[in-house]
């Protein structure tokens, strides 16, 4: 949960400000890694964030939460990285990854469930369990790369669909197809690997 940090002006005690920022490095690294899934790229984004934060310390003065401020800077760095990556390899060149009929066999010819999705018992209770989060992480990593990227931009970075489309150069429809695909795959993966286990 959001640790609170003293909000005294960073300019008054630069060494202390630097220490506080460094203390948040592990959190920021995890945050970046979840989206980028690339240790070197995540490290770079965090490093740029810390440098920007030190250079722009005055911009923090008076803000309530250092972690929130840093995470905001990091989000921009992550999106810069994604933009660079997707210029090198445009997401629109994806073939099967964006197909709407991917999960057609979940349904019969009339569009009803072949197998009715089960209720999950006490899902909120799972959120605090390390093993559950590890299972979720495994399910996320099993997603096709670009599907995972769009899903995490939406759910982890909290971007709106139009922003995601703009950054990746895809249509909203395409975006929604990929998000639905990601949610369905994750739902099935968690059903198999967690909630469906007795």
């Amino acid at each position, binding site marked *: 949960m959001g640790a609170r940090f003293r909000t005294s002006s960073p300019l008054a005690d630069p060494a202390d400000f630097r220490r506080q920022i460094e203390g948040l490095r592990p959190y920021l690294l995890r945050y970046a890694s979840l989206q980028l899934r690339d240790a070197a790229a995540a490290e770079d984004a965090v490093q740029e964030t810390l440098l920007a934060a030190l250079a722009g310390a005055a911009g923090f003065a008076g803000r309530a939460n250092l972690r929130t401020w840093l995470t905001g800077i990091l989000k921009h760095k992550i999106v810069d990285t994604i933009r660079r990556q997707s210029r090198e390899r445009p997401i629109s060149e994806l073939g099967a990854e964006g197909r709407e009929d991917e999960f057609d066999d979940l349904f019969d010819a009339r569009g009803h469930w072949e197998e009715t999705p089960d*209720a999950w018992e006490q899902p*909120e209770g799972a*959120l605090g369990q390390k093993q559950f989060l590890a299972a*979720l992480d495994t399910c996320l990593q099993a997603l096709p790369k670009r599907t995972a990227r769009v899903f995490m931009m939406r759910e*982890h970075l909290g971007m709106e669909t139009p922003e995601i489309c703009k950054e990746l150069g895809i249509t909203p429809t395409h975006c929604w197809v990929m*998000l639905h695909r990601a*949610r369905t795959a994750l*739902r099935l993966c968690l059903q198999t690997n967690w909630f469906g286990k007795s």
Partner: protein
Amino acid sequence: MKLLSCKETSRLLSQGEDRKLAFGERVALRVHLAICNGCRNVDKQFRFLRQAVHALAESDAGK
């Protein structure tokens, strides 16, 4: 009003997480969910995924 299949419902439930659904879409969803257990479960599960991703970001498990 057009009745939704489960397949269309799953798609709309997902889009409901990403955009504001039109009035007609919301009504059609509500009608379908009222009679379909499976889709009600999917609805909850899609929404749970968002919480779960946030929990993962706060944990040590994600590397």
